[in-house]
Each structure stands twice: as C-alpha cells, then as structure tokens.
C-alpha cells in the first residue's frame, strides 16, 4: 500500500518539477496518439458512411471483420507491422522501423476498426426519416447522407474517444515497432513498462497517474465538445 501513496507523491512532484525528459515523453505520446486518431477518424468515418449508405457485396462480412478487429491484440499488430517494416520485409526500404512514424502507423491501425465500427452503428441508429426528410426537401443523395452523419455525430465523437483511449493506453504494439528508444521512441506506456521491469514500482505508478490525468483532460475537452453539440440542437 505504501508504494501507492509514494506514487501519488512522486506523480505530484514530477508534475510540479516539469521534468524535461518526462515532458518530451508526454509530448511524443500525445503527438503519436493524436495524429493516429486523426487519420483513423477520417478513414473510419468514411468507411462507416460508405458501409451505411452504399449497397455492395460482402458488406455484412466487412462489418463483421471490423467488429472483430476492434479486439485486435496490439502485440499482433506490432509483430505484423514489424515484419512488414523490417529491413528484410516488403517495406524495409522505407527505414521506418523503430521510428515514431512506425508507432503512429501501429496506433492508427489499432484505432481504425474501433472508429469505423462504432461510427457505423451510430450512423445506422439514426432514424431513417431524417434521410427521407432531407431527400424530400430536395437534398442530393450526398447531402442527405451528410445530414445523417451530422445527426450521428454524438456517437461518432464517442467512437473517437474510445479509439483514443485504446491508443493512449496501448503498449504492446509501440514497444515492438518503436523499440522504446530513450529520447526517440519512448512514450508514456513503454516508460511505465520499463520502470516496472527495473523495479521502480512507485515511479511506474506515478507515470501511470500522470497518463490518466492527461487522458482525463482530453476526455473533458471532448465531453465539452460533445455537450456543446447537443446544446446546439
């Protein structure tokens, strides 16, 4: 129990002292996770809209695959990406292994199915009258679809939050493709794993507390954003 108390104290000290190394680690974590979620959101919402508004063969199969991939084990994603990005792999010439870019790709891959599948169900749960009403008012098919997506925005923001939660907390994939290189590819979660390995439990826990605080801030902003959207209705 003592360790937990010490951890809170150390977390507070770390925040107050604004340790430069820690700050860089936090910034890198944010940069990788936010850019990953950005790409995953664009791709995921597009996919969701396509699946919801277009009829094409294997649509149901794709939805099932997306739902399954929501549970992709990060280590598996990491390993597959490792083999692809390795110098001996098909994309080895790019020299991306053990770079932040590789970590960004891994996280985008992890977040994409979550955003796509959850946005899809959000779009699907919009009442069909909305689309019909828009069409009745003279909207084009594209405009009507846009109106439906707009109506599903609450659920879409939730899907983005879920995706962000996953990538911020993820360690397995970024450890494999990033290599946890000090000052280069070391992020919050891999630092926590390392400090645990080194036996500094209270520091590991302190870093965990800070990571949670950051997630809390991001979620608060998203929540405000979501609430404002509802109020605007």
């Amino acid at each position, binding site marked *: 129990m003592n360790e937990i108390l010490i951890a809170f104290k150390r977390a507070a000290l770390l925040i107050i002292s604004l340790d430069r190394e820690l700050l860089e680690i936090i910034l890198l974590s944010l940069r990788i996770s*936010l850019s990953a979620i950005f790409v995953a959101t664009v791709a995921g919402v597009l996919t969701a809209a396509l699946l919801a508004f277009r009829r094409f063969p294997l649509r149901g199969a794709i939805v099932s695959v997306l739902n399954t991939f929501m549970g992709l084990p990060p280590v598996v994603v990491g390993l597959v990406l490792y083999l692809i990005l*390795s*110098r*001996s792999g098909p994309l080895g010439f790019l020299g991306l292994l053990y770079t932040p870019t590789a970590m960004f790709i891994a996280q985008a891959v992890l977040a994409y199915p979550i955003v796509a599948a959850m946005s899809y169900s959000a779009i699907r749960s919009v009442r069909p009258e909305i689309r019909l009403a828009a069409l009745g008012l003279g909207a084009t098919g594209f405009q009507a679809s846009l109106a439906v997506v707009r109506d599903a925005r609450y659920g879409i923001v939730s899907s983005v939050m879920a995706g962000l939660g996953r990538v911020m907390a993820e360690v397995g994939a970024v450890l494999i493709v990033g*290599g*946890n290189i000090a000052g280069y590819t070391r992020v919050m979660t891999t630092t926590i794993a390392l400090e645990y390995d*080194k*036996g500094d439990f209270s520091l590991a826990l302190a870093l965990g507390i800070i990571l949670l605080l950051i997630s809390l801030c991001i979620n608060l*902003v998203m929540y405000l*954003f979501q609430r404002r959207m509802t109020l605007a209705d």
Partner: protein
Amino acid sequence: MRLGKILLAVIILMSLLSYTHGQTRIRCASTTSTQNSGLFDYLLPIFEKETGIKVDIVAVGTGAALEIGKRGDADVVFVHAKEEELRLLREGYFANRYDVMYNDFVIVGPPDDPAGLKGLSSATEAFQRLAQRGATFISRGDNSGTHKKELKIWKKAGLNPKGRKWYLEVGQSMAKTLRIANEKRAYTLTDRGTWLALKDKERMDLEIVVEGDPVLFNQYGVMAVNPKRHPHVKYKEALKFIRFLISEKGQKAIATFRDSHGNQLFYPNASKGVRIKPIE
C-alpha cells in the same frame, strides 16, 4: 462549433510536426539486463561526447536482439550468447565480433534451501539435485542469453526438465522472473547484476545458493551487422562504437560503472591492442 475547430486545428498541427532529427544515430540491439542495469546511461554519453554519434538502444532478449541484427534492423548488437554469436558470425550475418566484458550467473533460491543446494560448487550438480527433489524452478523460457545458459546447464546435467510440474517457464524478463521466484519460493538462474539490483530494492527473500562454477561465466560481446548482407547499415559508425567499447577508455568506463547501490556489475575483458579490420 468554435471549440471543435480549435480542437481540430490542434490535432492537425500535432500530426504535421515532423519526427525527424539531424544527429547521426546508430541503432544497437542489446539485452534488457544490460539496459536495466543503467550501464548504457553511463557509457553512451561518454561515446556521444567523443564522436557526436547517438546510440539508440533497443533492449530485448538476446534471442530477439540477434534476430533483429540478422534482419538488418540494427547496426550493431551487444549481447551475451558467445557460441551463438560466433555461429552467426561464421554464417555471415555479422562482422567484427569482440569480447567486451563479463559478469556471472548465480543460482538463487529460498534461504531455507528445500533442495539442499548450498555448499555445492557445481551448477550441473545443483540442477540434478533440483530435479531429484522436484524443487520448483522458474525458467526464463524466452530464448534470452540467460535462458540459453540455463538450457546448456540442463543439457550438461543430462536432463530435460521441459514439461515437468516443478519446472515453470514464464517467458518474462529477468526482473519479472526473479519476482515470480520470490513469490513462489522457488529457485532460478539469474545474472548477478539484475540480482544485486533487485535484491536490495525489492527486499527479495531469496539468496544465492550456488556461484563460482566456470559454467556460470557470462561473456558479453559486440559485433556489427554485416554491411555486405545489409548495405543500408551504418557500418562505419558501428565500428566506431565497437572500437570505443574495447578501447582503454571504454573498458575503464565499464570498470568504473556502479549501480545505484554501489555494486560493480560488469568486468571489462576485451583483448588489449586489437586492431579492428573493416571487412572489404
């Protein structure tokens, strides 16, 4: 929706920030035990100051480190599995291998020593006794240098413990394996460095039961990834790093390195006055 736009702008800005940096860097695949001891934090700044080259350490098990090197995903490897290193050197995956330093492995176990290993000077005999008495033994089981050493000792003892119910393969790092041994009141094979670091920090209720057998000697070596096989590697810089490690200065730095409890963890033993010949 202004908040939304600001949010979006921040996110896009974050994504556009490039990840690049100018400094010359080489990548060294090494082992968790070396990294966790703090040795690199001590050595690398000295090397960086001298050459301006930044060394990125990817710390994994020895098996994985060698694989990463074989695949060309590192420029240099710094590991401890001499026989295998020499084999891969012969097979042409690596070039310019040198001994750098050593420490040793020890067998640790519960202080009440249920298998009665204390007083034995032979690790092989100790393993035989463990098997006879069916005392719980925690194996790394992760193809690391320590695991390879352990398997070698079992082989020497003429035993195959795999699948026996007292033999637990945990597939984890040395520190985690020691913690499991501590919780389970079991025996395990560990490098002395990790043991010393953890024993004090985590008040481990285990002690060394067997040490000093020559078979427990733990040689660390460094070698460059063969540029003929992987033309993209930074061979010249890798050689600079190797040269530093076996130089008088590097060797002295290794000898003066102490962990946070003041223990010496590594003993330099590179041959003196070696001239490194780059392969053509």
